[in-house]
């Protein structure tokens, strides 16, 4: 093996980027070439010594400054539409030059005449669309609630999938989803309920509901999915629920290992 290739392979080996076959091949090279073995040993020693490093915990001040900054930026961002309106207004004034004035005046008169010749219709149609949108959401929510109560798992699954079509589900639907997550006999329905609830994790009721549901879960796949979700959310309150689950239920050994890892990642 050429020196440069050896060096590259050594870094891959040390960083754990070689697969099993690659590792075996590299170890064979070390066995066959003592000079490479010496170099590897001394560098491997330096590499492993880097594990001795200790990093202190960042202080609470860092969190405070970050969330203050984020809050300020979010507020500023919300205020942006006003700036946009300002831009539109300045563009309007820019366009409002004498040569355009007559054209605009004629257009306004034309629109006015058209409006009076055709009264009411546009308003009604806009109102009808708005009302029918609200009705659609209401009907869909009702459909979700009905489907979730069906005895067929397929129907209940369809009910959960309907939730994803609603832009912002109301409290009744959220409560029904949490109920499904805790009580549904079918694992697939429970998993689908978690997926649907993920869209609402910013709602404290949903977060609390997810945490409380941990102790009710019997299925390993649901337990693991909730563990992954809690790690993703870095939800510290869930640690206690996982510990209770491990204490009170007989868990599969790989699930137990997974939950322990998740707790470590959250802490």
């Amino acid at each position, binding site marked *: 093996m050429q020196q440069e290739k050896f060096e590259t392979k050594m870094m891959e080996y040390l960083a754990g980027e070689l697969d099993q076959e690659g590792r075996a091949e590299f170890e064979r090279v070390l066995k066959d070439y003592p000079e490479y073995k010496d170099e590897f040993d001394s560098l491997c*020693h*330096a590499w492993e010594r880097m594990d*001795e490093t200790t990093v202190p915990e960042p202080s609470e001040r860092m969190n405070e400054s970050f969330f203050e900054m984020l809050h300020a930026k979010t507020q500023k961002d919300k205020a942006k539409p006003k700036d946009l309106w300002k831009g539109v207004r300045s563009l309007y004034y820019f366009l409002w030059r004498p040569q355009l004035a007559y054209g605009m005046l004629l257009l306004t008169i034309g629109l006015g005449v058209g409006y009076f010749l055709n009264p009411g219709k546009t308003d009604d149609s806009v109102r009808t669309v708005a009302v029918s949108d609200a009705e659609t959401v209401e009907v869909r929510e009702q459909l979700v609630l009905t489907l979730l109560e069906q005895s067929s798992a397929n129907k209940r699954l369809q009910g959960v999938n309907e939730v994803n079509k609603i832009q912002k589900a109301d409290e009744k639907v959220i409560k029904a989803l949490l109920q499904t997550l805790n009580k549904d006999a079918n694992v697939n329905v429970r998993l689908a309920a978690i997926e649907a609830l993920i869209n609402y994790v910013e709602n404290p009721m949903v977060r609390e509901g997810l945490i409380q549901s941990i102790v009710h879960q019997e299925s390993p796949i649901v337990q693991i999915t909730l563990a992954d979700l809690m790690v993703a959310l870095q939800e510290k309150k869930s640690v206690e629920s996982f510990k209770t689950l491990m204490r009170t239920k007989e868990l599969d050994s790989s699930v137990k290992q997974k939950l322990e890892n998740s707790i470590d990642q959250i802490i």
Partner: protein
Amino acid sequence: MHSLTDNALMLQVKSGDLGKLGLLYERHKKRLFGFFYNMNGNASLSEDLVQNVFERMLKYKHTFTGDGTFTAWMFTTARNVNYDHHRKHKPTLHQNDVTTMEYKLQDPEDVERGMIKEDENSLLQQALKKLAPEKREILVLSKLKEMKFSEIAQVLGCSEGAAKVKAHRALKDLRTVFMQLETG
């Protein structure tokens, strides 16, 4: 679960849902803090630099395309923040300072000029501080931050092969510094 991956969250931040940056911060604050702390050994400065990274992510959120990994994009930003900080706080050099400058470059103590020295107890920390910043950086990223060489290559703007060669050279230098510290 897809909607909660780092890339998906950053794309949501990009589209205006700035609150999602809070989740990314919770996930990566320790890793970033560790990166800066390993680079400069100063906890208070590291906290400020973490804050700068997230401010910059918001400012340049439009540049995130989601093609590479979020981690690579974040560490590229962290690297720029670190570089800018040290560039701003570097003492001004004049023409007649050339001799002093050459001397300074040879003296490892002066490489870390401007950094507040905290917690120099371990030999490793001393050794890391004696390495050139770019060498320390690649070792911190590959070993301590457990980044893949493909990601490091994106951060450094070089090929994956070149990243491995650089890491190897840096490790060799670290070994030499260890030996110097132990013998003398």
